[in-house]
């Protein structure tokens, strides 16, 4: 499974729709302090199923919705979409239906095709968050499993958040082992 792009709208300081293309190789993200770089990282972890508001630098999960600034009112809705592409058989069956499918036919051949997935998470004030995969409702749990199978996930070893390296250095030996277990 490969990640191809991240789109966000109304998420934290990204009130306007933005798209980050995830191309092969090394992509650098730069900018001044406080401009939104870590917010991008949090958007990715959020759409992959992060369930703790505290891990999102938020008091409650609703706080990830654009809260307004000088000259702009707060929004009521935040949405992040992660586009994936990959072999059909890497996707749990429950999430597979309903999407564009570059494979043909059915049965064993259908298991071998390429599939594209849009994983979209949306949150509305007072209404909580929900997921859609290729337009079809999905449970948070299934989305988390999808990413866990891909060895990625909001808290996998693949996500090194700002300050996490320091946390590993300062941790006591037992905590450090737990940090690694969580990531592994």
């Amino acid at each position, binding site marked *: 499974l490969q990640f191809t792009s991240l789109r966000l709208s109304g998420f934290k*300081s990204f009130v306007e729709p933005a798209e980050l293309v995830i*191309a092969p190789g090394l992509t650098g993200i730069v900018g001044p302090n406080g401009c939104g770089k*870590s917010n991008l990282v949090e958007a990715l972890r959020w759409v992959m199923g992060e369930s703790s508001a505290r891990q999102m630098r938020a008091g409650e999960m609703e706080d990830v919705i654009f809260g307004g600034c000088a000259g702009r009112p707060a929004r009521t809705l935040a949405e992040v979409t992660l586009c994936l592409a990959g072999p059909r058989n890497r996707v749990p069956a429950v999430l597979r239906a309903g999407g564009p499918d570059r494979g043909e036919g059915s049965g064993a051949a259908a298991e071998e095709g390429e599939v594209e997935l849009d994983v979209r998470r949306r949150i509305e004030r007072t209404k909580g968050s929900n997921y859609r995969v290729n337009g079809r409702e999905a449970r948070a749990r299934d989305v988390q499993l999808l990413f866990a199978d891909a060895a990625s996930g909001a808290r996998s070893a693949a996500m*090194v958040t700002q300050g996490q390296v320091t946390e590993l250095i300062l941790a006591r030996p037992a905590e450090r082992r737990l940090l690694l277990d969580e990531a592994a």
Partner: protein
Amino acid sequence: GRERLAASFAAVDGHFRTLFSRLFGGGQAYLALSEADDPLEAGLEIMACPPGKKLQVLSLLSGGEQVLTALALRFAVFLTNPAPVCVLDEVDAPLDDANVDRFCSLLSEMASYGTRFLVITHHRMTMARMDRLFGVTMAERGVSQLVSVDLQRAEALRETA
């Protein structure tokens, strides 16, 4: 249970030893499980010897040496189960240019096996080693925008607030 943990520990330790020497351009390091007969309750201690120095526990190394060693450990865990995308948020802040250079070479090599990297950085040398750069700006205060940049423009971008 216990055998699986011991096996995964051995795998991580193996990667860690290799990655440490790559990132430091020499030296050696190893992991040690400690303080309990039951590995499920053990602590993870890190012993490291940068090139030309003495073997010491992690807490006695310099700030930059600690970060580079911890990165070797994170990547060692990563390599036991590589993911399609890896995101690094300002991990290179305390590293000098020689260490950043080796760090970027390691990223390039891991990318060649298929992992796509998103590297958030303020470090000029890291920017120079990326395949492409995106800038995040707040031209309107409190509102983030994503823009594509080339290296020269990145220099200007990170200097304005």
